[in-house]
C-alpha cells in the first residue's frame, strides 16, 4: 500500500460523491417530466408507439409491459445472432452463433448482465454488436432505471393506484440520460484513441516478424454505454484491459467513474423524489461504506506478494501483478475490480482469476451481498431498498412500533415480497451452481478450492447480473450456457417482479407523518444497521461455500500450495 495508491482511491471516491448530487438532481428532473429539450423526439416516439403518456399503470400493467418489452428484445437479439451470417456489416464473415450460446447471450444482454461466454471479436459481426448488443445495453439499463423509479414513486406517493408508465420511464431514461451521456463519453473515448469504424480487421506484421490480425470496429460507441449502463460486455474478449477498449490512464479513470456514476447518483434522485435528500445520502453512505471496506481489503490483499512466488525466489515488492495490466498497476486494478463487481457492471481491466484468494473473494462478495453496493443502474438501488425493507422491519420491531419506511407501513405483504427477492441469490448461486458442479464437472480446469471459486464466481456473476468472470472455467457449453441463462433470468426478473409488487403495495398505502416514536432512517445508526443486515444475510448464506473456496485457498497459500 503506497500513498499514491491510497490517494487514487480517495480521489476516485471524491469524484463519485461530487457527481452524485449533480446527476441525481438532473435525473429527478427527467423523471418528474421537467427535462424537455428533446420534446419533439420524445413526443414523436410516443406517437409512433401509441403510448398514452397521461395513462399511468397499475403495478401489474407496468410489470407486463416491462416483461413484454424485454421478451421482444430477447427475441430480436436471438434472431440477429442466428442470422448474422446473412445480414450486412459482417466484414469478418462471422457465421451464425450456435443456439445455446445465442440463447445465453440474448439473455445476458437483455438482463443487463453482459456475461460473455464468447469472444466478441471472434464470434460477432459488427451488426450484432451494434444493433443487437448496444441497443440492449441501452434498454436493459433503462429497464432497471424504470423499475427503481416506479419503486421510488411508490414510496413518494400516498394512496395511489398507479406507479407510473413503463414506456415513458423507459423512453426518458434512454433519451435524456443514457444517450446524451454515452454520446459525449464516446466522443471523449475516440479522442483518447479508441477506434470507431466499420473497417475490416487489419493484418499486421509485428517487429518480431509474426503476423497479427488487429481487430477493430465501432468500439467507442459500445464501450461508452457498457460502462455507463452497468452492462460490462466488452467489444473485445479481454474487455477494458485491451488497449483499444481502454487506451490511456485518463480513459481508465473516466471509465472507472462511469462504472458507479449513475448508480450512485440514483440514490440522490431517490432522496429528491421522496422529498428528503437525507434518505438518499443514508443509502449512499451504506453503499459507500461497503465499497470502501471492500476496496481496502482487496487493495491490501493485492499489494501482498504471493508467498509461494516469493519462496520460489521472485521479487515480491511489486505485490501481486499476475493478470494485471502494467499500465494500470495494483491501485487502479483493484479500484476497477471493486467498482465493477459492486456496480453489477462486469467490465474488467485486470483478470480477477489471478487475484490473491482474498483479493478475488472480495469482488465475489460484492456481488454475493445482492449486488447492492451501488449495483447496476436502477437494479442496485431497488436491490438495496429490498434490504431496507428487511432492516426497517427488524428495526421497527426493536423499537416497538409497526415498522415504517418513508411514512409507509411495512407489513407482511412487503416482507413476503422482500424475502422472495432475497431468496433468489441462494437459489441462483448455490442451487444452479451445485447443478453445474454435478452436471458439468469437466468444465473446471484448475483443481482444488480455486476451481470451486471459478464455478462460484460464474454463477454469482450471472445471478447478480454482473457479467465478469474468473477465467479457467468453461462456460460455453450446453449445460453451463443454459444454467447461467436461467441464473441471469432469475436474478433479473424474479427480483424485478417482487420489487414492482412492493412499489404497487406501498403506493396504495397512506403516508404516515414521522413522530418521535418513528425510527429515523437517515442517521448513522440506520446506515450501520442496514449494512449489518446485508452482511449478516449474505454472510450466513455464503459462508460455507466461501470457506470451501477462497478462504481455504488463502489458508493453503500460506503453506505455499497453489492451484
Amino acid at each position, binding site marked *: 500500500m503506497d500513498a499514491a495508491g491510497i490517494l487514487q482511491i480517495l480521489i476516485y471516491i471524491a469524484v463519485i460523491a461530487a457527481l452524485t448530487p449533480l446527476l441525481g438532481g438532473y435525473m429527478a428532473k427527467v423523471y418528474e417530466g421537467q427535462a424537455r429539450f428533446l420534446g419533439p423526439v420524445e413526443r414523436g416516439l410516443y406517437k409512433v408507439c401509441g403510448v398514452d403518456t397521461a395513462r399511468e399503470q397499475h403495478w401489474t400493467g407496468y410489470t407486463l409491459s416491462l416483461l413484454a418489452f424485454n421478451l421482444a428484445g430477447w427475441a430480436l437479439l436471438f434472431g440477429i445472432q442466428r442470422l448474422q451470417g446473412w445480414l450486412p456489416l459482417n466484414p469478418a464473415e462471422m457465421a451464425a452463433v450456435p443456439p445455446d450460446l445465442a440463447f445465453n447471450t440474448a439473455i445476458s444482454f437483455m438482463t443487463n448482465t453482459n456475461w460473455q461466454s464468447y469472444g466478441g471479436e471472434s464470434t460477432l459481426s459488427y451488426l450484432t454488436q451494434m444493433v443487437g448488443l448496444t441497443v440492449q445495453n441501452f434498454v436493459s439499463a433503462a429497464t432497471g432505471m424504470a423499475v427503481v423509479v416506479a419503486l421510488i414513486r411508490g414510496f413518494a406517493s400516498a394512496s395511489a393506484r398507479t406507479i407510473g408508465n413503463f414506456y415513458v420511464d423507459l423512453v426518458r431514461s434512454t433519451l435524456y440520460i443514457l444517450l446524451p451521456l454515452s454520446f459525449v463519453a464516446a466522443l471523449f473515448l475516440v479522442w483518447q484513441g479508441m477506434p470507431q469504424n466499420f473497417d475490416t480487421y487489419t493484418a499486421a506484421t509485428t517487429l518480431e516478424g509474426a503476423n497479427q490480425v488487429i481487430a477493430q470496429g465501432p468500439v467507442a460507441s459500445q464501450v461508452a454505454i457498457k460502462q455507463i449502463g452497468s452492462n460490462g460486455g466488452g467489444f473485445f474478449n479481454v474487455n477494458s484491459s485491451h488497449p483499444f477498449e481502454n487506451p490511456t490512464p485518463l480513459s481508465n479513470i473516466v471509465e472507472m467513474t462511469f462504472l458507479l456514476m449513475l448508480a450512485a447518483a440514483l440514490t440522490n434522485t431517490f432522496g429528491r423524489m421522496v422529498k428528503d435528500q437525507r434518505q438518499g445520502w443514508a443509502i449512499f453512505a451504506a453503499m459507500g461504506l461497503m465499497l470502501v471496506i471492500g476496496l481496502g481489503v482487496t487493495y491490501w490483499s493485492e499489494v501482498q506478494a504471493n508467498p509461494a512466488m516469493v519462496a520460489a525466489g521472485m521479487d515480491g515488492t511489486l505485490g501481486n501483478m499476475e493478470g494485471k495490466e502494467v499500465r494500470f498497476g495494483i491501485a487502479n486494478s483493484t479500484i476497477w475490480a471493486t467498482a465493477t463487481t459492486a456496480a453489477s457492471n462486469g467490465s474488467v481491466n485486470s483478470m480477477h482469476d489471478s487475484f490473491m484468494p482474498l483479493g478475488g473473494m472480495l469482488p465475489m462478495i460484492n456481488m454475493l451481498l445482492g449486488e447492492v453496493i451501488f449495483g447496476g443502474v436502477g437494479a442496485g438501488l431497488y436491490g438495496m431498498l429490498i434490504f431496507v425493507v428487511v432492516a426497517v422491519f427488524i428495526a421497527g*420491531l426493536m*423499537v*416497538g412500533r*409497526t415498522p415504517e419506511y418513508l411514512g409507509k407501513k411495512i407489513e407482511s405483504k412487503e416482507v413476503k415480497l422482500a424475502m422472495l427477492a432475497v431468496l433468489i441469490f441462494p437459489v441462483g448461486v448455490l442451487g444452479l451452481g451445485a*447443478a453445474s458442479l454435478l452436471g458439468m464437472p469437466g468444465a473446471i480446469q484448475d483443481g482444488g*478450492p480455486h476451481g470451486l471459486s471459478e464455478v462460484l464466481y460464474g454463477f454469482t456473476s450471472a445471478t447478480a447480473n454482473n457479467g465478469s468472470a474468473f477465467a479457467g472455467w468453461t462456460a460455453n457449453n450446453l449445460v453451463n450456457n443454459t444454467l447461467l441463462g436461467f441464473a441471469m433470468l432469475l436474478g433479473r426478473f424474479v427480483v424485478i417482479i417482487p420489487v414492482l409488487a412492493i412499489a404497487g403495495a406501498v403506493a396504495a398505502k397512506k403516508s404516515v407523518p414521522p413522530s418521535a416514536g418513528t425510527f429515523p432512517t437517515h442517521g448513522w*445508526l440506520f446506515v450501520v444497521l442496514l449494512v449489518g443486515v446485508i452482511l*449478516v444475510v449474505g454472510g450466513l448464506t455464503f459462508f460455507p461455500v466461501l470457506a470451501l473456496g477462497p*478462504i481455504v485457498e488463502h489458508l493453503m497459500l500460506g503453506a505455499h500450495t497453489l492451484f
Partner: protein
Amino acid sequence: MSIHRPKELSLFDGAILGQAAKDAVVKLDPRQLIKNPVMFATGLVAVLSTALTLRDAGGEHFAVMVQISAWLWFTVLFANFAEAIAEGRGKAQAAALRGSKSSAVAKKVASVDARDHQTLAAEKLKAGDLVACEAGDVIPGDGDVVAGIATVDESAITGESAPVIRESGGDRCAVTGGTRVVSDRIVIRITTNPGESFLDRMIALVEGAKRQKTPNEIALTILLVGMSLIFLIVVGTLPAWASYSGTTIPMVFLIALFVTLIPTTIGGLLSAIGIAGMDRLVKFNVIAKSGRSVEAAGDIDVLLLDKTGTITLGARQAAEFIPLSNVNERDLAEAAFLSSLADETPEGKSIVALAKSRFGLSEPKSGGTMTFIPFSAHTRMSGVDVNGTEIRKGASDSITTYVAEKAGRTPGGVPKELVQSVERVAKAGGTPLVVARGDRLLGVIHLKDIIKPGIRERFATLRAMGIKTVMVTGDNPLTAAAIAAEAGVDDFLAEATPEKKLELIRDTQMGGRLVAMCGDGSNDAPALAQADVGVAMNTGTQAAREAGNMVDLDSDPTKLIEIVMIGKQLLMSRGSLTTFSIANDVAKYFAIIPALFLASYPQLQALNVMNLASPQSAILSAIIFNALIIIALIPLALKGVKYKPASAEKLLRRNLLVYGVGGLAVPFIGIKVIDVLVAALGLA
C-alpha cells in the same frame, strides 16, 4: 362469592411447570406444530434424524447421532414448553375470571313485566334474551339493564369491593356476566351470544388456544420462514459443493447444521411472547378483544383524553372568593355559604368548606325559613331563599340576567368589574360562579380544576415515546387552554361534543396517524369504534364497551399509557429475540463449518476460533446450545424485554447492543462451555 383476583404468579410456579411439561409433549401433535413453521421444520428434521440413527445403529457416528437426535427433540419440546408455560399462566388468570361464570343460573323472563321465569344455564343464553336478577343472583351474561335499579358487586372482575349502581337508561346500564346483584331487582337484556362475551374472548386470548396471529406476528413469521428457506438451500446444496472438495458430509451433521441455523430461538418463543403480552394486560386489569388491538396500541401517535376524571380530579374545588369592589368579601362568602349548604355536589361542598375555613362561618341556628332551589339545566343556577331574600349562584350570564330582571332593568350592562373577574378566573383555567343576593351582584367564586398529581410527568413520558396528547373538554377554549398548559398536554379540543370528537379522530387518522381514546358514555361509542384503540371504561355503557376494543376493569383512563407500553414491549420482545436468534448463527458457523470439512481441508482448523475439542463435539455443542438457549430465554419472553420510554433511536441503539452484539458474543461463550463439558464427560 369470594373475590377472585388474578394474583401475581411467580415466574416458575410449580403447578404450571408440571402441567406445561405434560403439554409440551401433547403439543408434538403435527396438527398443532404446523402453526409454527420453524418448529414444524425442526420436528420433521428430528423425525428424519431419529430414523437415520436407527438405520445406522452401531455405525461410526452412532453415539453422536443418538445425542443429536435427542437434542433435536428437546429443541421442539423446549419450544412447546415455553408456549405451554405462557398458556398455563394465562389459564391461571382466566380460571379466576371463569370460575364465577360457569355456575351461574339464569332466570329467563318473557317480557320486562313478566313475574314468572324459566330457569336455565347461563351458557344457554342468546343475545336478546331477557333475564331477571334479584338480590344475591349472579348476573348470567353481559347485557344492558332495561328495567329497575340495583346495586351490583363487581369485585369479581374489578377487584373494587364497593358495590356500584346499575340502572336502566343512561350511562350506567351495562352489567357484566359474573358480577352479583346485591340489592333490588333488575331486568337485563343479554347482548352477547354464548362464548362471545368479552370475558370469553379474553380467556381465549390468554389461554392461547384460539389465539389469532397478529399482523406483525404474521409478517415476522414470514421473515423467519424466508430465513429458514435460505438455510434449507444452503444446507441442501452443500453436499454438491462439498463433494467437489472431496468431502462427504454425514446426513445427520447436515441436519444439525440446518437446525442450528434456522431461527429456532425466536421461532420457539414467538407464541409465548404473544400470550405473555396478553397476560401482562390482564394483570393491569385491562381486557383486550384481540391481540391486534394490543399491537396497534404500540403504534399510537395521538392519545385523546377526557379532561374530567382523567387529567383533572372529577370535581372542581372552590379556591377563592372575588367580591366586587363595593362588597365585603365576608358577605360574598356568607351568601355563597348559605346557597351551598344544601348543595350535595362536590363543588357545593367545597364552597362550604372554603367559607368555613376562611371566615369560620357556621350553619345558621334553626329559625327562619330556608328554601333551597336546586340547580336546573333550564335556569343554570341554584340557590336558597332565606327569609324571603333570594341568594343565587350560577353561570355569569344567567345570574346577570336574573339580577337585571329583579331590578326591573333590561338585561345587559353587566358591570365591567364583574366581567374582568369572570375572565380572570376563566383564563386561569377555572370556572367562575357568580353570586347575587336579591338584585345585587356580590362577586365571583373561583372554582378550580384540580390537576391530578403526577399527570404532568406521565404526559412528559408519552411525549418521549412520541405520542401526542390531546385533552378533550366541554370547557370554553380559554379555560381549556389554561388547564392544558397546566397539565402539560400537547393540544386540546374545547367545547367538545361527541360529533366534534369523532371528527377530530377522523381528521387525525386521515393524516395517517393512529388514535387511541377512552370513553364511557353511549355517545362515546362512535368515537370508540372509530379510534384505532378504543378503551371503554368498565363503568360505562354496554354500547361503549362493545364499540371499544379494550375494556378497562378499573375504569382508569390514564391506563392507556400502560396499554401503549405493553403493546410496544410486545413488539420489542419479538424484534430483539429475532435479532438475537439470527446473530447467534455466526458463532454456530464457526463451530460447525470447520468441523464438517476438517477431514478434507485440515487448514480450516484456523476457523475453529473457539478451539473446540473435536468435530463431533463441536456439532453436538452447537446443537445443545441451540436447544438450551430456548429454555434460558423463557423468562425474558414471559416478562418482555426491558422498556423505558425513550426516543426510537435510543431504543434501537440499546437493543442492537444488547441483543445484536450480545447475540453475536453469547454463543461463542456458550458453545465453548458446553464443548468443555461434552469433552470432559466423554460424550463425543
